[in-house]
């Protein structure tokens, strides 16, 4: 197994774990944890392609991963603030109790 394939398989496992968790959990914070896992899997594949891919550019993939980390930090901050605002109104973070917009 080449290093690129090993890292990509690890990224796939992380992504699938995060996705299954984001679908299965009912606590809004833990759904956000699943999203973070998926973002990390994307980052890992960026870095793996930078290091072992055929592109001779020395730092493009690294910059991509760096900016992706910054975006993920912003996403986590806004998402957690939304959860806090939701908790202030509803006194719960359980997703099944939020059904006002159900058609």
């Amino acid at each position, binding site marked *: *197994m*080449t*290093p*690129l*394939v*090993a890292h*990509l398989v*690890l990224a*796939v*496992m*992380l992504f*699938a774990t*995060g*996705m*299954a*968790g984001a679908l*299965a*959990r*009912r606590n809004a*914070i*833990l759904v*956000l*944890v*699943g999203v*973070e*896992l998926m973002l*990390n899997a994307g980052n890992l594949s960026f870095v*793996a392609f*930078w*290091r*072992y*891919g055929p592109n*001779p550019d*020395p*730092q493009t993939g*690294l*910059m991509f*991963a*760096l900016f992706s*980390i*910054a*975006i*993920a*930090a*912003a*996403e*986590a*901050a*806004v998402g*957690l*603030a*939304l959860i*806090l*605002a939701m*908790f*202030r109104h509803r*006194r*719960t973070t*359980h997703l*099944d109790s939020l059904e006002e917009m159900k058609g």
Partner: protein
Amino acid sequence: MSPMFYFLAGLTVLGALAAMSLRNPVHCALSLVVTFAGLAGIYLGMGAQFLGLAQVVVYIGAVAILLVFVLLLTRSAGGGEQEERAPSWRMAVLVGLLVAGVMGSAVMTVARWVPRDAAPEPVPVVQIGRVLMTEYALPLQVIGVVLTVAMIGAAVLAMPEKRGVKADRGAANGKDVVPGSGGTSPTRESGRSVS
């Protein structure tokens, strides 16, 4: 591949599985820290020193701590422990396995086309700084604006609502507002009674 990679990869996957399957949300957040640390080690092993340190600082130092804070802030006072998993959690696991299968087979297919001998030297941190200041100066500015907006937005969202906003909403709903006295000039009592 070195045995160190397999050790770190196993640690990362185990942490992720624990973060998604444990019952106690605080345990989930702590397992997430294990996953982030394993990923930082993998980055370091790939020669991306700056990225590994950024992973530690941003994810372990900021995101995981923020998660723990919000978990503790939203500890439900009473209300009881609700069922944590969705009723259709088996379907979610099935979807995850399907996604893993499809993406894994795609990786295995594509891997044949990628040459093996491409392995650039690790980029020194000085060069990263230089490139950030020249070639990637505009994205750096944009990311600064994005982070600032996100910070302000998070603060506004998490701030307690002002009394005036509630009074206005109470006046708009016409709830608990005495005709004649409310509406145009909601008093402090009407604002409080709505809340």
